[in-house]
């Protein structure tokens, strides 16, 4: 996915001189996850700024730039490190518009990879999926793309958005290839989308878990089960339309998420389905999530800790047993 993100950044920087990047090792080092590759050479040190290891404060710098009319895009080398910046994110980036009675806005993007990937062995402090920490905070927009096409269009839209946007890059998909549309297009930041049409069960994901859902749908096909895959794309605001519409048809759903299940993003989505889609559900929604433990190092444990295609397939079949 990094090519698409890189292209989005380059295009927006060319289009709008107010767009500036801040982050660790994004300059001469070219970025740890390739997303900023080549941009320092092309745009120079005033627009691609290497930061010391001061997450709280360079997020705050982003807020200051944004209220002054710049368009900062701030990278967290890994989203885990945003734990250091939570005060700036919750109390400044997200709230200044409201606290100022709408007099100021914070057109800023906070982006970086989350979850257990691209490479294995990230361990407990580097591979967390903390999406819900952002999704819970009014004042933010929180989105996560599931493929190259969406990644580019959504990042460009995020940069042009006058609200602060937390752009969650699915770590496991960072190195996923696939050609990138070189057109200048933007995508909505508040719309879920059906990524695979099906009839019998609805698989719901966002970011990296969409890839798992799509694979599960293919596997289920082989077993004669037709699954529909919904990509939420935006966690804040939530667009429940496509999921509820799909469930109206399938009457069954599986929520898939890399995050820890308890209080993860899936909790809100499932509760919305269970209330707004109550009369359409024939069986309980199934949940497939990351296991509730810090990310372990050992290969076998790390695999066990992640949501798997097999679990999704099994969960889908559970929803089909009780008719």
């Amino acid at each position: 996915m990094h090519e698409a993100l890189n292209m989005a950044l380059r295009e927006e920087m060319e289009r709008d001189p107010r767009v500036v990047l801040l982050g660790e090792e994004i300059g001469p080092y070219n970025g740890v996850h390739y997303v900023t590759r080549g941009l320092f050479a092309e745009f120079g040190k005033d627009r691609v700024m290497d930061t010391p290891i001061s997450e709280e404060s360079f997020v705050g710098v982003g807020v200051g730039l944004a209220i002054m009319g710049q368009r900062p895009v701030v990278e967290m080398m890994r989203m885990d490190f945003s734990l250091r910046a939570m005060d700036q994110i919750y109390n400044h980036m997200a709230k200044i518009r409201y606290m100022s009675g709408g007099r100021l806005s914070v057109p800023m993007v906070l982006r970086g990879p989350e979850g257990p990937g691209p490479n294995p062995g990230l361990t407990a402090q580097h591979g967390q999926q903390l999406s819900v920490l952002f999704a819970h905070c009014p004042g933010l927009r929180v989105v996560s793309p599931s493929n190259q096409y969406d990644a580019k269009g959504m990042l460009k839209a995020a940069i042009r958005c006058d609200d602060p946007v937390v752009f969650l890059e699915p770590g496991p998909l960072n190195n996923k290839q696939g050609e990138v549309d070189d057109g200048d297009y933007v995508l909505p930041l508040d719309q879920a989308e059906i990524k695979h049409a099906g009839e019998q069960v609805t698989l719901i994901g966002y970011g990296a878990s969409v890839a798992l859902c799509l694979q599960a749908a293919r596997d289920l096909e082989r077993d004669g089960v037709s699954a529909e895959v919904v990509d939420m794309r935006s966690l804040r605001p939530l667009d429940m339309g496509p999921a509820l519409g799909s469930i109206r048809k399938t009457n069954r759903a599986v929520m898939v998420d890399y995050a820890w299940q308890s209080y993860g993003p899936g909790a809100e989505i499932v509760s919305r389905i269970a209330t707004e889609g109550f009369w359409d559900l024939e069986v309980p929604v199934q949940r497939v999530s990351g296991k509730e433990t810090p990310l372990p190092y050992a290969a076998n444990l790390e695999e066990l800790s992640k949501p798997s295609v097999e679990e999704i397939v099994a969960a889908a079949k559970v929803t089909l047993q009780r008719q």
Partner: protein
Amino acid sequence: MSSRPQPKLSTPVGKSADGGAAATTLSAARRFPLDATTLKNYLRQMVLLREFERLGEREFKNGLIRGYYHSYAGQEAVGVGLVNALDLHQDYIVDHYRDHGHMLLSGMDPMRIFAELFGRANGVSKGKGGSMHMYSPENHFLGGDGIVGGGISVATGVGLALKQQQRDGICVCFFGDGALDTGTFHESLNLASLWHVPTAYVCINNMYSMGTSLERHSSLPRLVDRAVGYGIPTEQVDGQDVWATTEAAERIFRKVRKEQRPYFVEVLTYRYQGHGIHDKPLNYRSLEEETAWHARDPLKLLSDHLVEEKILSLAQIEALRAEVVAELEVKVEEAKQGPEPAPEELMHDVTL
């Protein structure tokens, strides 16, 4: 701790890391020329700030104001000296929660500040922000803040934006002595120094972080000594004396503007009231200490001079005060007339 700053500013005078002649002493400052008109104007401003807080605390007790109220009383010479040295057509202020004085000095209408304190729709933030959260882009006042140290990195970004946009302005960031204990202060100074950010970091050292005296929260009692690790000039200023604050501010801001480099300023002063309106300061500080500071009250120092120099008589000063109070009372009444925010305002301004 004996080296703790005393009212009479017995502490060694601030030395500048870059060796510049940044020393500020009362005498030196007194030599700084301020004409009669300016001094009269400054006195009027100080009275405005002092009386604003008196009325504000009165209205708090009357129940019109809720939550937090942090009085600026005692620190007037800091704001008057520093904010007047700015050109708010191009410069910006980022403040913390003890912000009423700086808002008034940046030209915001007291009526709208009162209205915000009353939680009315005609308030600076439509009544949604409250005492700590007012912003006036027109006046280049970019907010108070409720998080200690929360504005320091934001002010670094504001300064950086001015640089990136190739504008002439500088940014001034106000915070308290307690903010030096927050990591973000140190992170931000390092960034500002590396990036040559035109932001002046002004620590208003009023000797207390809430109920904790300087020597109980700061490993070194001279805060300039805690800001030397960033290769930026630092300086200690007498915050009771408006000549001193004016002289220092004009010189320092000129330097920040010209050299496009950050600067750290420690202004020594004292807050007269408790930390917040419910706080009883005599629980943690002595009457003697308070009295000693009141002996160098910034309004007193200026009034005495104006009287000595026969620029104003005591009667004229009293008249001026009465006039200011009368004006403020009108603002209070006007503010009270404001409606409470419409219910639908609850969900407005969260996002676009």
